[in-house]
């Protein structure tokens, strides 16, 4: 089914990150000749992980980012993972400017693999309490799918990427296809039991993470081996111990012989043919030479990462779509949402004084949302999940000078008390006026308008933050934790790196951009399956859901293509 000239393919996938990688894999596996476009450079698994085996003392600044870089690139410098060991995988502010109408920290990874190289690897499923949220609570629009639509695709994704977890049997956080879990430590188990005793609907579980803890034939075929718990995943892992697109999806798609990967390809816009009434291809600017080229295909997947997917669609104007592709009702770029990560709470615990941990573990504890799950019970909508972890560290005494100082430093003995930490992951409500749009005058070096971002917290987010502080203070007190300290990081939206929406799914073309298969209602041979498609945000780390939606949509697209039913 392919038209084999150099610029014609069966399908084009825009963006070679986590979801673009899934789209390419699914399409290529089913014989679809696929062009995978990536605006950044190629990053080959292992070969292009220059810092992966460096020890802490081998970094000239021991991990710290030089001041010159911090001053030139303040946004990315606020990202927790932008450190000396992985800074080469992040987009520096000046490399791709954008307009902040309100403060928004846009964290990006332009390379094959995208942000899947540096992601935090937490993979929690959604439940129907999440999918039914907008309909029950009267915000956004109803999701056109439910948990049962996505469940088999969650399984497919989990089995392929490898997910370590426990079967917890919780209705608000469905179980998946899990490899064995690392341990929770004594204090985490203790807190788990305190919650069980005092709060019937609050659970502290092991945070499910995309790491290989058991061998399976599928991982062998991928060339991946067990995670060794180095906890420096953001550098890329030579074992493929955690999932990223580079180790797992791209080589798999390439092996089929159906993949053409083209890095350094900035997509300017999607070409819409008024006569055929469908999209026919994409306009690409070579990132290095700035030359413009066109590529053509019957099927287009847009997986450029949430905000860049909005940008491409907004910039894809035509007589039929003067306000952006598929944007008949002024919905594109609206209802953008994110996760509220502002709250942190820490404390100390005097229990288990003689016990400690040994080794490392690439995850920690997780509290699924417990607020407003079964019914509305607070003066704010929705709720928050939270991370939870307990650690002990070795205090270093640096008093004195000379030999006294040396002896003090060498006199490391007893560990300090247990420290416990939680951070919130709050659902935010998508709002019409939380938008991204195109700047009228300013363009980037590839001739694409700059993206204007106008996104802010609201009163619901502030109330939820206070509730997180109150509830966790109570829970910490019940557990006998002391020296409880809450902290509002005041971080801008975006630093959560969970921006979603702008091209939302829904039933009705008048109130949503995409149908239940992630097709643009008004241009059905274009699919959007990255974070841009999200109708609401829930509280779970969203990547797993993006991947499941992508696999589902790609398989549907292939079926439709085979039936010749992709055009409108």
């Amino acid at each position, binding site marked *: 089914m392919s038209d084999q000239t150099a610029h014609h393919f069966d399908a084009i996938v825009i963006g070679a990150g986590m979801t673009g990688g899934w789209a390419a894999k699914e399409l290529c596996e089913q014989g679809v000749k696929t062009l995978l476009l990536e605006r950044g450079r190629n990053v080959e698994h292992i070969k292009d992980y220059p810092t992966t085996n460096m020890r802490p003392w081998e970094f000239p600044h021991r991990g710290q980012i030089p*001041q010159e870089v911090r001053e030139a690139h303040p946004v990315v410098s606020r990202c927790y993972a932008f450190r000396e060991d992985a800074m080469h995988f992040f987009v520096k502010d000046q490399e791709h400017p954008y307009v902040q109408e309100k403060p928004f920290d846009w964290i990006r990874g332009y390379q094959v693999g995208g942000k899947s190289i540096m992601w935090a690897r937490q993979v929690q499923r959604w439940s129907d309490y999440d999918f039914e949220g907008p309909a029950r609570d009267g915000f956004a629009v109803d999701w056109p799918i439910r948990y049962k639509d996505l469940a088999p695709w969650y399984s497919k994704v989990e089995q392929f990427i490898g997910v370590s977890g426990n079967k917890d049997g919780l209705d608000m956080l469905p179980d998946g296809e899990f490899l064995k879990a690392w341990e929770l430590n004594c204090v985490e188990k203790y807190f788990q039991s305190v919650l069980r005793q005092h709060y019937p609907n609050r659970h502290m579980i092991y945070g499910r993470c995309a790491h290989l803890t058991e061998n399976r034939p599928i991982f062998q075929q991928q060339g991946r081996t067990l995670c060794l718990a180095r906890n420096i995943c953001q550098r890329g892992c030579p074992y493929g111990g955690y999932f990223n697109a580079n180790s797992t999806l791209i080589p798999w798609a390439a092996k089929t012989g159906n993949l053409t990967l083209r890095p350094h390809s900035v997509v300017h816009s999607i070409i819409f043919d008024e006569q055929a009434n469908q999209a026919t291809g994409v306009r690409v600017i070579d990132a290095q030479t700035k030359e413009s080229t066109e590529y053509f295909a019957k099927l287009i997947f847009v997986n450029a990462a949430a905000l860049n997917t909005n940008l491409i669609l907004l910039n894809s104007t035509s007589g039929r779509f003067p306000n952006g592709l598929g944007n008949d009702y002024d919905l594109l770029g609206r209802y953008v949402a994110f996760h509220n990560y502002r709250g942190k709470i820490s404390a100390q615990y005097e229990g288990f004084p*003689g016990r400690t941990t040994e080794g490392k573990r690439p995850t920690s504890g997780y509290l699924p949302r417990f607020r407003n799950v079964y019914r509305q019970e607070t003066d704010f909508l929705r709720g928050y999940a939270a991370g939870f972890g307990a650690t002990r560290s070795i205090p270093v005494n640096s008093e004195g000078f000379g030999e006294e100082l040396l002896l003090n*430093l060498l006199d490391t003995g007893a560990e300090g008390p247990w420290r416990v930490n939680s951070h919130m992951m709050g659902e935010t409500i998508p709002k019409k006026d939380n938008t991204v749009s195109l700047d009228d005058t300013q363009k980037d070096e590839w001739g694409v308008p700059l993206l204007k971002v106008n996104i802010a917290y609201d009163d619901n987010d502030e109330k939820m933050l206070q509730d997180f502080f109150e509830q966790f203070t109570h829970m910490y007190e019940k557990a006998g934790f002391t020296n409880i300290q809450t902290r509002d990081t005041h971080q801008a939206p975006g630093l959560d790196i969970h921006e979603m929406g702008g091209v939302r799914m829904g039933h009705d073309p008048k109130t949503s951009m995409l149908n239940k298969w992630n097709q643009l209602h008004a241009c059905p041979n274009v699919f959007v399956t990255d974070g841009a498609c999200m109708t609401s945000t829930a509280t779970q780390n969203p990547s797993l859901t993006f991947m499941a939606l992508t696999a589902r949509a790609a398989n549907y697209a292939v079926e439709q293509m085979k039936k010749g039913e992709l055009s409108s």
Partner: protein
Amino acid sequence: MKRRKAIQNLALISAGMALLPGCDFEQWPVFENLMLEKDQLRLVDQLTRAILPQGGEGMPVVSTPEPTAHFVLRMVNDCYDARDARRYVAGLKLFQQYVQDTYKTSFKSLNPQQHVLLLTEVQTDEHLPKSLKYFLSTTKNLSVRHFTTSEYFMKNHLRYEFAPGRYLGCVAES
């Protein structure tokens, strides 16, 4: 003041003894934001050795990719903002002057006890200029960081393992 006298007395006793091995300044990297003279580079080198002497009898041999002074100055040069870097250099000059004026000799020619007394005085004397104290505390903090991020210290004192491949959640503290 009492302490200063003590240092001067000790200086007489130990006059002529070269106590601090030096670093060959010809091999120093360039710290373009600091613009230090050779004697200033040497002083930082001597100071880091006085703050945290290494290689003494019965003491562990801690090998690092660079001498401590290189690390200290690289960090100030690369990772501190311009204001703090200026403050550091100003403090360094005051430190040079302070040693010269107060003890009538060079830092290098003082012995380890004298160094400790001198450094303690700079740290604790509230009348001394802030930038002088800033210079000393920064040099000390970075020297300590250089030491505590060394392979020796991390492996032997912080239980560091590069690829542990295991996590045990509740073991007896050793």
